[in-house]
């Protein structure tokens, strides 16, 4: 390989956190203008490697070259000056500030008076968005915008700082299909203009669509670097998992007894602007998939069913009995559980240990007299950690220290353990690696086999198609169509339905 063409060369990178080796002699080379995928299981060390490149973590050993010159990056600031821009897995935006203020946060434009020149930031932000081909009002406060726009704003922020290298850490984890398309088009344009892109992703289809080359990490070791044109999806999965597996998610036809009364019945539910006249039923043992675009009301429907958002009209029945849903406590009392969309905000107490986070939902079952049974608690937690292969140095590690995908597993484990009657999962596998994805799907099937109802919201269609018995398509808050799973031929059929193109 021609080393001169490398925008970045990392060699022999080592990093450990309190004795745990996270990166072991990792080499990584990024060519100018290429899209280079960084793949690997949850906790393989992808984010850590990138944080080293970004000056967030110091390295224990190894060297970094940027444009052929040795550099030592002590801080984010230095990395940024060296032309490295990162779109973090956890966003680096301030919800209370406007888009333009966020784009120029840390690199504010000053007027001649040395005061902030917000007018020029707004103009420049508008230009950057125009170049990116997206339409965002720079004056909007961040908190009023959805996830997709946060992503785009992060990218704009990196571009505003003249990044030559752009690191995207699971950028599509929470994007809807058409937003993903927008992002891909943007990535292609940026690469064509000479910007090098490091792209971290767990989604096989994306990897092959977008990337020129791939590097795979496994348990902190680099196991593969190659052009994607020389690889098959199976090769990539094998490199990630470490053994030959079938990476594709398979649908398994399940028989559901629909003769009796439904376990869950939703009648003409309306709430706010996002849920309008939604009715559906689910029988015991059934897995319902909720499909729809971002903003189609899937999350809002879930929030209503969990008693968080107030219901304007309509009723919810469980075992034929109408129930009141005024708070999440009401919902939990009748056996409804929700695995929320945004794990960091709604799902976890980041400073608390993995064990405590897993057990918080099931303290009742762990009581011994007035006290908690610690031994039983630890056993329960250990079992969940093992079932979901949560990669953690110890159950007592603060959950905020885990890799993104492993945090997601903890959120899922937390609710799987409660044995709910009705489990609603909002984007349950966002950021989860391939191995664990099938594990989670297995767990969902187990729950359904045990006579529960599971409602799965997902923007990842292969996953939705693999797990659901029935798929309800939402559009602008109301039900567009309802399919039996076997009526759906392939992903494309479902995609058309979601986009409202009748077939």
């Amino acid at each position, binding site marked *: 390989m021609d080393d001169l063409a490398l925008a970045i060369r990392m060699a022999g990178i080592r990093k450990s956190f309190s004795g745990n080796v996270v990166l072991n002699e990792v080499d990584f080379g990024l060519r100018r203008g290429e899209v280079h995928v960084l793949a690997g299981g949850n906790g393989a060390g992808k984010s850590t490697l990138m944080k080293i490149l970004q000056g967030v973590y110091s390295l224990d050993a190894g060297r970094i070259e940027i444009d052929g010159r040795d550099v030592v990056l002590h801080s*984010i600031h230095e990395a940024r000056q060296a032309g490295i821009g990162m779109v973090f897995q*956890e*966003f*680096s935006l301030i919800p*209370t*500030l406007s888009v333009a203020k966020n784009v120029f946060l840390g690199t504010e434009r000053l007027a001649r008076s040395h005061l*902030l020149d917000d007018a020029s930031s707004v*103009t420049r932000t508008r230009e950057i968005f*125009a170049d990116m081909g997206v339409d965002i009002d720079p004056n909007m406060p961040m908190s009023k915008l959805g996830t997709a726009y946060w992503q785009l704003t992060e990218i704009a922020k990196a571009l505003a700082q003249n990044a030559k290298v752009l690191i995207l850490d699971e950028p599509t984890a929470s994007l809807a299909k058409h937003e993903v398309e927008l992002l891909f088009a943007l990535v292609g344009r940026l690469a064509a203009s000479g910007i090098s892109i490091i792209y971290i992703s767990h989604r096989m289809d994306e990897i092959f669509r977008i990337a020129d080359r791939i590097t795979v990490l496994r348990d902190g070791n680099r196991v593969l670097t190659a052009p994607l044109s020389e690889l098959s999806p199976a090769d990539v999965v094998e490199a990630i998992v470490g053994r030959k597996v079938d990476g594709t998610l398979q649908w398994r036809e399940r028989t559901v007894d629909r003769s009796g009364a439904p376990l869950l019945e939703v009648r003409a539910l309306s709430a706010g602007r996002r849920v309008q006249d939604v009715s559906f039923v689910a029988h015991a043992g059934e897995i319902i998939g909720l499909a729809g675009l971002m903003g189609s009301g899937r999350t809002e429907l879930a929030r209503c069913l969990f008693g968080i958002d107030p219901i304007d009209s309509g009723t919810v029945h469980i075992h034929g009995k109408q129930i009141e849903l005024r708070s999440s406590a009401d919902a939990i009392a009748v056996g409804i559980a929700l695995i929320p969309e945004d794990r960091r905000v709604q799902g976890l107490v980041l400073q608390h240990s993995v064990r405590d986070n897993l057990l918080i939902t099931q303290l009742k079952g762990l009581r011994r007299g007035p006290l908690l049974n610690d031994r039983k608690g630890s056993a329960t937690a250990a079992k969940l950690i093992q079932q979901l292969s949560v990669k953690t140095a110890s159950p007592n590690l603060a959950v905020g220290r885990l890799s993104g995908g492993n945090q997601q597993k903890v959120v899922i484990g937390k609710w799987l353990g409660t044995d709910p009657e009705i489990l609603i999962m909002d984007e349950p596998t966002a950021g989860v690696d391939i191995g664990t994805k099938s594990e989670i799907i297995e767990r969902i099937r187990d729950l359904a086999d045990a006579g529960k109802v599971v409602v799965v919201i997902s923007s990842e269609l292969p996953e939705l198609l693999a797990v659901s018995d029935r798929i309800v398509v939402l559009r602008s808050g109301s039900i567009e169509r309802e399919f039996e799973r076997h009526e759906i031929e392939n992903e494309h059929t479902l995609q058309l339905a979601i986009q409202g193109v009748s077939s």
Partner: protein
Amino acid sequence: MTDLAPLAALAGSPPGRLQILARRLGTDWRQYVIYIGFVTIFVIFAVTLNDKGFLQTNNLLNIPRQASSVAVAAVAMTFLISCAEIDLSVGSLVGLSGLAAAYGSLHGGLITAILAAVGVGLLIGVVNGVLVTYVEIPSFLVTLAMLWMIRGFGQWRTDSKAQPIASEAFRTLFGSNTMRIVWLVVFAVVGAIVLNKTRAGRYVLATGGNRTAAEFSGISTRKLKFYVFVGTSLCAAFAGMMVAANLNNYGKYENGTGLELSVIAAVILGGTSLFGGKGSIAGTIFGALFVQLIGNGLLLSGLESSQLDIIKGAIIIVAVALRREKSGAR
């Protein structure tokens, strides 16, 4: 495109701005509760208390005069609360810095008095700042402890006695009717510029809005918070000079008792978020004036100060409740 974009933006801007303003007033009226409240109460008093002299120039000017020391401390507190910290020790510091100024005036004059008060403020600010940002003790605890320690120290060193201010110049500079209003305006203007128009102010809001994100944007949040603590204490010391120079013309350890609460109330009434990330200096100033306005009017109407406290408390609850964004309706 690069050349045309600003033009296009400019061309589109006048109606755009107006529309935005109208929309903001329509939906975000809660943000303006303090101004609406101020005007409403003012009008009510103007109508009902006209015969009691509410509208006389001197009475009206008394409102900013009496609010001035709270307002000066509250400007700094706005920064502190905006970056999601708090300082409960400002009231005690008002007492101690006043004492320091009194001693200074006795042993030198105007300059020594100022230096003594500012020195005390600097010292307390550094201690608060180090304990919160470097030792990482929550600011609520640090400053609560400092509240007692500062007051105890002042009482102990002075045997609970008042210390007269010996400098006429000092009394005029910080306590005269005119200067109190001048200081109020100066702090308000400088505070608003720093918060809205400088990097430091932007970083304060960013830090309070999401500390991790701010760090990841290259902001040294620890250093920033440290400086905000120091600034808050310095402003409190300034307020201490104003209190000492005013009415009584002496410094006493218990000057400023409870003032920290009025300061925090002014900040919160003014629309600054207790959780950080959002702050308004104009709001804070009006918050301070609002509390003073209520006191002024109710006293004129013949209520006793005990009754007045009850009503003041109730009005604060109502104002903050009105401003609260509805939860759940996201």
